[in-house]
Structures are given as C-alpha cells and as structure tokens.
C-alpha cells in the first residue's frame, strides 16, 4: 500500500490521482446537470419534448400521449380526443392495436367502455354516446410491462387511423 510522506505525516495521499479525479468530477457534474435539464424539458417523461400527438386534429379522432413513459409506472395516459363525427348509431367504436395492448396493462379507462371486442390485430372499445353534443375525451391509463420501444396504432371503426410511438424507460 503506497504511503506518501508529507513532512512527518505518513499518509496514503495520491495527489496526482486526486487532481485527475477532480477534473472527471467536474465533467460529470456538467453531464448530470444536463441530465436534469433534459428531465425538466421532458426527455424522460411529460414535458415540452415529451408531449406528442398522433392523427389529424381536425379528424373525428386524434391522440395526445407522452412520447416517453416509464416501465411499471401508471404514468402513461393516452388521451383520445373524440369529435361529434366519431359517434355512429349512438356509439363511439375506438380500436387500439393488439401489439400495443399486449405490452401494457390497462389500469383504467375513463369513461368505462360498454363492451370490448377482440379481433385479430386489435381490440375495439365500444363507448355509449347517445346524447353527445360536444367533443369529448377518452383516457386510457396504462402501465408498460417493460422498457423499450412501444409502437401502437389506433382509430375508429371504419374511420381514420394513425400510428403512435413511445419509448419506455426502465
């Protein structure tokens, strides 16, 4: 074990290593500060960079969602904007791709659907809307199972559809 001699003091001091460590420390401080700024602006979740939209905002259905989500956290909320034109025979039939739903746990849907229909590549959620007189929103609160890219597709039965992409952090 190397000991330094500073006068009469026997001490395991390594000034050369310490100076290099201080330089590295300051670089890492800068990087960590940038990380915090990135978190504030939404690179790791909701925020300026984290809020995303899918679909045409003038269409009967479009989506607001977080570009970045966290695994095992119920912080992932899909907000479907539903216009009056989306209502057909007193119902709104909104479908979401099976590929997306298999990678998340759907914790809550607001409002609750009247029925859920399974098809080959999608699940269709049927919402009663006999008296809808103004645009409304449907919220899917989901919890991603694991990290990685999460691709989804959604739309109205017989209507426009769109893709949406998320990245789920661990």
């Amino acid at each position: 074990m190397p000991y330094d001699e500073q006068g009469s003091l026997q001490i395991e001091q390594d000034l050369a290593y310490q100076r290099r460590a201080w330089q590295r420390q300051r670089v890492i401080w800068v990087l960590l500060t940038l990380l915090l700024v990135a978190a504030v602006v939404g690179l790791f979740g909701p925020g300026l960079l984290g809020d995303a939209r899918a679909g045409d905002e003038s269409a009967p259905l479009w989506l607001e969602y977080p570009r970045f989500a966290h695994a095992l956290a119920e912080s992932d909320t899909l907000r479907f904007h539903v216009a009056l034109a989306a209502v057909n025979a007193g119902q709104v039939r909104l479908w979401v791709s099976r590929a997306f739903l298999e990678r998340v746990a759907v914790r809550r849907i607001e409002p609750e659907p009247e029925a859920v229909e399974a098809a080959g590549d999608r699940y269709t959620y049927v919402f009663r809307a006999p008296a809808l007189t103004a645009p409304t929103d449907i919220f899917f609160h989901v919890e991603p199972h694991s990290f990685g890219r999460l691709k989804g597709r959604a739309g109205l039965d017989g209507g426009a559809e769109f893709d949406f992409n998320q990245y789920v952090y661990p």
Partner: protein
Amino acid sequence: MEPVLRAAFIFFLLTGLFRIAGRSSMNEMSSFELVLMLVVGEAMGQAILGKDFSLTNAAIVATTLIMLNVGVSLLKHHSHRAKLIFHGAPLVIVEHGRPLKELMDKVRVGEHEVLEAARELQGLERMEQIKYAVIESSGIISIVPRDEDK
C-alpha cells in the same frame, strides 16, 4: 434475475452519485444528511422492489446489496486502484498552520470548518496550532496538533 439487477444498478448508481458529489458534501450536510438519506432511501426502495413486496423479493434484494458491499470491500482490500475509486484517499489541507487554499477550494472546505474540527477534536484555538489537518475519505476532518500543543 430482475431483483438482482435492480439492486445492483441502484447500489452502483448511489455509490457513483455520492462519490461524484464529493466528500465535503457528505460531511457538511450533517443536518440535511438525515433528510437526504431518508428521501433517497424511500425513492430507491420502491425502485428496487418494484411491485413485488414479497418476503422472497425483499430477501433477494437485501442479499444482493450485502454481497455487493462485501465484494466491493474485498476488491478495495486487494486493489489500490479500486480503493481509490470506491473509497477515495485522504488529503492534507493544512500544513504547519498554513491552509492549502487551492486544495481546500477543490474539496470545498473552508477554514472555519477546519477550525471547528480543531476545537471539537483537540481543543485548539488557532490555525497556527495545527500541524496537519487532513480531510479523510469519509469527509471527516482530522487534526494533528503541533507537538507543543499536544
């Protein structure tokens, strides 16, 4: 496997972050340190356990953390470089009554902190009575008084 990986990640993340924070940060925040530990512990505990609060998962996590600690201590014991990385090294900041300003600025320790340690540990009154002041790896300041002041 996941509990082990989570625990290992958090262990090295916290070790790295506190080493990056620097030793003066750990030493001077004596009253904030408790709050910091409580908050960090709470945040990390949930991240490590996830949604699994079973005894099995808790036992795996605890065992992982303890064995990582043992592993690191063995590594430090056998490798000087590992010791420097994980533990750091002491640093002389006052020599024969003279504060080494540049080094004190680097570790963010002020003369008042050295004098405080001198009073607490050795009952010294003035900087001139200090032969050596060393900031240890833990952030504690140790004082060696001048021979005539012992």
